[in-house]
């Protein structure tokens, strides 16, 4: 078993375990931490795969920025008292989830995935580096979606502000 495989199994096992805690865990703060753990494990997988930029972003945006949001919200919302998991929904969701997983796994394993049709083979990546390749493409071909994505963030920001703000701010006619 080479290092790569070891990394995969480690990261993936940990990711799944933390994900399971995210789904079933009791303590909400730990849940968020488990999410962070999952995200970090996933980013570890990215690194294993050689996608350093995405891996880094994953940790930066996700594991830090977004999780901070959550922590903030959790801190404003007093600790949740009820049961964390609803048993009667587990009854159906787990078997069917399992079936769906089997189906997805079947698709994943038997899908005739294309390989090596792109231009960024190892030689190219080695030459210019993953980050540069992504950056170039992102700011040329995918510039338009990127701009739209910024719009999305703008909208989300405005939305979060409007929805989250206190009542008194409803403005009057000038």
């Amino acid at each position, binding site marked *: 078993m080479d290092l790569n495989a070891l990394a995969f199994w480690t990261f993936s096992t940990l990711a799944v375990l933390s994900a399971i805690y995210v789904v079933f865990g009791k303590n909400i703060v730990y849940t968020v931490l488990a999410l962070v753990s999952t995200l970090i494990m996933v980013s570890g997988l990215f690194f294993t795969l050689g996608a350093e930029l995405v891996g880094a972003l994953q940790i930066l945006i996700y594991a830090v920025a977004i999780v901070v949001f959550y922590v903030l919200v959790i801190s404003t919302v007093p600790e949740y008292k009820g049961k964390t998991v609803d048993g009667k929904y587990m009854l159906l969701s787990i078997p069917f989830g399992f079936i769906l997983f089997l189906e997805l796994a079947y698709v994943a394993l038997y899908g005739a*995935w294309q390989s090596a049709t792109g231009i960024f083979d190892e030689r190219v990546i080695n030459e210019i580096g993953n980050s540069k390749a992504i950056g170039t493409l992102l700011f040329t071909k995918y510039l338009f979606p990127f701009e739209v994505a910024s719009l999305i963030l703008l909208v989300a920001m405005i939305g979060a502000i409007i929805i989250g703000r206190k009542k008194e701010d*409803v403005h009057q006619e000038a």
Partner: protein
Amino acid sequence: MSIIEQLVTGLGVPNLSVLIPEIIVLITAFVVLFVELFSKNRTLITGITLIGLFTALISIFTISQGDITLYGLYVVDSFSLLFKLFLILSTIFIVATYRPYFESKKAYFGEFYYLTLFALLGMMIMVSSPNLVTFYIGLELMSITIYVLVGMFRPKDEKYKDLDYKSKEGAFKYLIIGGVGTAIISYAIALLYGATGTFDFSEIAKIAISEDLSVGIIGGLILLVIGLALKASAVPFHHWTPDAYEGSATPIMNLMAVTAKVATYAVILRVLVEAFPFSSDEWGFAWALLAAASMILGNFVALRQKNVKRMLAYSSIAHTGYITAALAAPTGMGFAAFIFYSLVYIFMALGALVFLTAFEKHEGWTNHLDDFKGLSKRSPLMALLMLVFMFSMLGIPPTVGFMGKLGVFLALIGSNVWWLAVVLVVMSAVSAGYYLKVVSYMYMYEPEKNLPSFKFTGAEKAILILMAFIVLFLGIYPTIFWGVSTTTSSMLISSIGG
């Protein structure tokens, strides 16, 4: 020359002339955003928005030559222009009803205007996508904006506190289920990407050929269909629809149920036809199942609703069924029927919902059926218009609803999908149960509640009269619309593999 340079030089400059409508909408949105920051003049904001939309509307006619631009990520063709035209048009009508409604509920926010414009922009991007990335990003811009729009309905008055809460609940449900949908669509895109190595529709089309469809493509296609069904609120992925619709402010429901929905229909057609033209057996059957389920559930559940708003939400689910049923017949006729029905759906749904918007302004109006009692006496013109919309949604000639269903019938029977046609027939008959209820409450009961006398703004009246006129006119003379739909559908087909 490095690879990067090779990449960049091949791209060229974007052809901005075909993007004028989008640019105008975007600029208007930002103008409103900034004006809203400094001025609270509501007339000004409404005015700017409407002027911007009108300009965008007119600018569509300036585009005589379509193009694929933005490095192949954006397509402007007759299909997208047609839908953009109607999306902008319907947005104009919806925006025109914002102010009186929100003022009456004391929930006015300038943000509604530019968020609506952002949503519109998302839809416009969506219908112009030749590529899964554009499609995805447009869809998400629209979705996320609408989550916000639904959730930001916050009447100042204490007596509307439940509306406030309901809007939050609706928005949250929509957000979660929409998020699931987004995840499913992302996953589908991932699978398709893995199976074809590209995001472009035309490239995917070359690989996704029916005879040897790989498991990966099937999985991706079906997940994509599921995701789209979720966004278009087809049963069994419809659950957010009634709740989000009911929770949102009625003009926002209008935006969701009419504009966003039609944009979703358009994108469904575009994705499936352009990306999977040769696997229509699969998605045709998938949509047949979804359509049947939508018709059945939508109509049956609508039958028990007492709240007209919620009834219309279920009715919109049923209409998703009627419209997507045309996809079960993946032929030129089916697509034409799909386009036609999508377009005319705008008018009847808009009419019915603007009607609700106009009435909901009044104190004590709860959209309950009882409020409709004796409406024909208290407001004869409005009742008559609503009657037209109801019969149109029911599909009775000489309203355009009939023409829509006729097209679907033709398509289905032409493709030998008799069973779905029969389901459609039976469910149409079932739907009579609730549409007629509205009419009979308006016309056949005496007024029960003493609501204050109704006042309507000129815009509301004008919109309703216009919509009713269009519904009747197209019902009697659908020729032009059919012509447009048929041409568009044939152009859509001809672009396959091109």
